[in-house]
């Protein structure tokens, strides 16, 4: 919105985005949108989804540990991939 006080004029330029842009914008969108409760609920939904990610990881590990079979390969995968992942995160952050 461009407001021209001297001419008592406001110019509103509306640009529509594609579905992919909307989806990208919704990732991590956690703000109130004035006049739209429908959109504002998204912040709560994002919060719920964040904890769903945590729950998926923790419950997945719990269910795996309850099984006797596939325990050894599971330990190898979780230890190996976990160590590589943490090393990558540290290296990329500290060294680039």
């Amino acid at each position, binding site marked *: 919105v461009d407001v021209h006080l001297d001419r008592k004029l406001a110019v509103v330029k509306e640009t529509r985005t594609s579905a992919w842009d909307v989806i990208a914008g919704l990732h991590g969108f956690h703000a109130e949108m004035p006049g739209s409760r*429908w959109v504002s609920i998204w*912040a709560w939904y994002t919060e719920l989804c964040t904890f769903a990610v945590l729950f998926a990881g923790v419950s997945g590990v719990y269910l795996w540990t309850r099984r006797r079979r596939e325990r050894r390969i599971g330990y190898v995968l979780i230890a190996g991939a976990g160590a590589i992942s943490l090393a990558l995160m540290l290296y990329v952050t500290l060294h680039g």
Partner: protein
Amino acid sequence: MTMYHAIRKIHLYSGLVILAFLMMYFVSGYVMIHRPWFGGQAGKPPAAVRTESLAGYTGPREPAALAAYVVDRFNLHGRATIPPPQRQPAKSIRFNIVRPGTIQQVDVPHDGDTATITTTRENLAGVLAQLHRVHGYGGGWIWNAFVLFNDLASASCILFALSGVYLWWRTAKRKAWGVLCLSASCAYTIGMVLYLMYAR
């Protein structure tokens, strides 16, 4: 091996492999949506600015070649990103050397032989937020391995959802609540996308 067992194995093994990245996504994502709770922008050190000589550089005066030269000569660490022409300043060539928590903005004047390097460092919340957003190959093989893990974690999230729904459908005796939750979440998400695309 039945289809059910194959999908169960894919679900389990892919989950264990990307568990650390999934937890990183949770921690960094939570910090991002509640940044003020984690200090906001406080505690960031002031930007450090230094000017270096480019005397002796004989290559082309274009961003990619300059970035490669500056990274090598001044031992900068990170992935080079070059802003598009419309975001380049009028009087200089600009590129950034980026890694989570550290951005080194380099400006080379069109008519000069110097490089001004502005180093901006983030606080812990900023480091996590940038770790969450790392993308794009081309920053060396370790960087590329990190991005590959990030891509695998992202793809696995889709795979988890699909294989999880399949496993639930095959095993659950009562599906009513699951169908209700799944339908409501899909409807709300699709509705949001359509609303933001078409609502006046």
